[in-house]
C-alpha cells in the first residue's frame, strides 16, 4: 500500500450521526471477493431505492469523483466488517472527517490507507452547513494534520502512529516480521507461566 501526504479533491457532507458499518455495506453483499470491487455497494440502501434506482437527493449520487466525506459522530460504529472500508476505498473515498469513529472501523480504515480525521463537533457542523447538499474542493494535509477549505485552515486530530502508518504506507505484517525472535521467546515463556493457555487438543 502506497503512503500519501496530501488529499485534494471534492468533498461532500453526509449530515447523519451513527452511520454504522451495516449501512456502509449491507450484509447481503459481503460474500463478494475483494477483487470484484466493493464500490457499487457503498451505502447501497441509502443511495438506491428498493427498485435499484439511484436516489437523486443523495449527495453521493449527485457528485462524481467524491474523495472526502464530512459526517457526524460515531461514524463506522458497529460490526467489525472491513468490507465497510473496502466499499469506501473502492468508491474513491480517501478521507472521512467526523467528530468520532467506531474504534474497529478506524483501525480498519488506517490498514487500508483511508484517513479517519477528527474535528470538533462544532467545526463539523460548520462544514456541514457550508457544504449543504453541494460539493466543494477541500485539501487534507496529512503531514501537517490540517484541512484547508476556502480561506480556512483547520487542524485535525489523528493518532500519531496512524499518521506515520498512512504517510509511509506501512503494513503491520511487514513490521512484525522483524520481531520473530521476540515472539518465539514470548511463546516459550507463556507456555511455562500459563500452560493452560496452550491448547492440547482435548477431543
Amino acid at each position: 500500500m502506497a503512503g500519501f501526504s496530501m488529499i485534494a479533491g471534492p468533498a461532500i457532507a453526509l449530515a447523519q450521526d451513527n452511520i454504522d458499518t451495516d449501512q456502509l455495506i449491507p450484509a447481503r453483499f459481503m460474500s463478494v471477493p475483494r477483487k470484484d470491487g466493493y464500490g457499487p455497494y457503498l451505502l447501497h440502501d441509502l443511495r438506491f431505492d428498493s427498485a435499484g434506482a439511484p436516489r437523486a437527493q443523495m449527495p453521493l449520487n449527485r457528485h462524481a469523483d467524491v474523495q472526502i466525506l464530512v459526517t457526524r459522530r460515531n461514524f463506522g460504529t458497529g460490526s467489525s466488517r472491513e468490507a465497510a472500508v473496502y466499499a469506501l476505498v473502492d468508491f474513491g473515498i480517501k478521507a472521512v472527517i467526523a467528530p468520532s469513529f467506531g474504534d474497529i472501523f478506524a483501525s480498519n480504515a488506517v490498514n487500508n490507507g483511508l484517513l479517519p480525521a477528527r474535528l470538533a463537533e462544532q467545526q463539523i457542523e460548520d462544514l456541514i452547513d457550508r457544504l449543504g447538499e453541494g460539493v466543494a474542493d477541500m485539501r487534507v494535509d496529512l503531514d501537517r494534520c490540517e484541512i484547508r477549505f476556502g480561506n480556512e485552515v483547520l487542524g485535525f486530530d489523528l493518532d500519531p502512529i496512524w499518521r506515520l502508518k498512512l504517510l509511509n504506507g506501512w503494513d503491520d505484517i511487514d513490521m512484525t516480521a522483524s520481531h520473530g525472535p521476540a515472539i518465539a521467546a514470548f511463546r516459550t515463556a507463556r507456555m511455562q507461566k500459563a500452560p493452560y493457555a496452550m491448547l492440547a487438543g482435548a477431543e
Partner: protein
Amino acid sequence: MNARPRTLFDKVWDAHVVLRREDGTSLLWVDRHLVHEGSHHAFAKLAERGLPVAEPSLTIGVVDHYAPTRDRDRIGDPDIARMIRTLEDNTTGHGIRCFGMRDPRQGIVHVMGPEQGLTLPGLLINCGDSHTSTHGAFGALAFGIGATEVAHVLATQTIWQKRPKTMRITVTGQLGPSVTAKDLALFWIAQLGADGARGHAIEYAGPVVEDLSMEGRMTLCNLSIEGGARCGMVAPDEVTFAYVEGRPFAPKGADWDRAIADWRALASDAGAVFDREVTLDGAEIAPTVTWGTSPEEALPITANLPDPARLEGARADQTRAAMDYMGLVPGQQIQGTPVDQVFIGSCTNGRIEDLRLAAAVLAGRKAKVPGLVSPGSALVKAQAEREGLDRIFIDAGLEWVDAGCSMCVGMNGDLVAAGKRCASSTNRNFKGRQGRGARTHLMSPAMVAAAAVTGMLTDVRPLLDGRV
C-alpha cells in the same frame, strides 16, 4: 516489584505484551483466535503472500454467520454454500480445528467458545467479529478485529494495539423482578451513548454484576461494543470457575489447580485507578426496549417516545430520521406498539438461560404473531430439547430451528421483510440490519416472549409474575 495497584484489564494486558514500541503501540500475544465464514478476506490475504498460519492449534473455526437454520442437507443458495465451503477448505488446508455444519458443537462463535472451555480467564482472545467482547465475561481480554488484523493474527499469533483507557461501571443495589443483563446493558448505553465508552476497556463490577450468572455476564459484555467500548470484562470468581470446570478444552487436574490460583489473582487490586468511573443503581432499571436505529435509542417500556420538536440540532435530525424509519409517532407510549414478528437467539441472548426465561413467559400461552427461535449452539438446542423448552415454543406457535447467527444479521437468509416490525433479542437495531427496511426493537428474550404473547411491545413483568 510492581507496587502500583492494577486493574483486571492491566493485569491481562501486561501478561500479553511481547514488546512495546517507542510510539506506545504494543505487540500482544493472542491465546485464542476464532475464525468464521466472514474470515475469507483474511485467508485470501494470507494466500496472496504465501504465508502459513503461525499457530493452527490456537486457531479455531466455526460455521455461524451463514449457517442455514433449516434444511441443512440442501443449501439452496450457492453463495451461502460457497461461504461455508470456503471456511471449511481454509481451515482444513491450514490444519485448523473447525466445528463445521455437521459437528454437534457447531454454534455461534461467542456461544461455542465458552461452552467448549476454549474461553478461559486471563486469556487474550481475538475474532473478526465485534461481539468478541462477549468472552470478557470470564475475565479474558477479548476484542473484535478487522480482516487485515485477522490476517496478521493468522500469520504471527500477535496483534498491534494501542492501550485503551480503563472505565469501571459499578452497578449497585439489585435488579428488579424480570429485569435482566440485557436491560442493564441497554440502560447504560442509553445513558452514555453508542460511543459513550469509545476508546475504553470496561470492567463491570458491583453487587448486581456479581449476582449475574455467566450467561448474564456474557450478555452484558457482549453489548459493550454497542456502547463503543473496545472490550468489556468481569473479574473471574466462583461463578466463573463453576462454569468453566469440566468443559472439554478447560484445563484438568494439576493444570486446573494452577489455573484457578492464577485466575483468583486477576481481580482489580484495591486502590486500582480507572480513567473513568460510572455508578448505576440497579433498582432504577426497568425492562428496556429500543425504539430507534441505534442501541442508544432505548427507553423503559413504561416510557413515552421522544419528540424531535422538543430537541435541537443534530439530535433532532437523528430522532426524526429514526422515528420515520421505524414508523413511530413522536410522544406516544412505546408500550402497545404492534409487532409483526419476533426473534429469539443471537450471541447476545441465545443461551440456555435466555431460552428458559422466554419459555417461562410462553408456557401455556399462544403467540399472536409468528416468530423464530434459534438457539445459540447445537448443544444449547439439545439441552433445551432435554428440558422440553422446544415443545413450549412450538406449542406457542413459534418456529424452533437450528443454531447460527440467523435473523440477527440475516446473512443466512433469515430476514425480516421491509416495513415489518420485529421484537428481537439481538444486539443491533441498525437500519436494514435484519433485512432491508426491517424495523428492529431490541429487548430481553423475556420481553420478546411477552411481545409474542400480546402481539405488541409489552411490559413482561405481569406476565412473569409468579412464574420464576
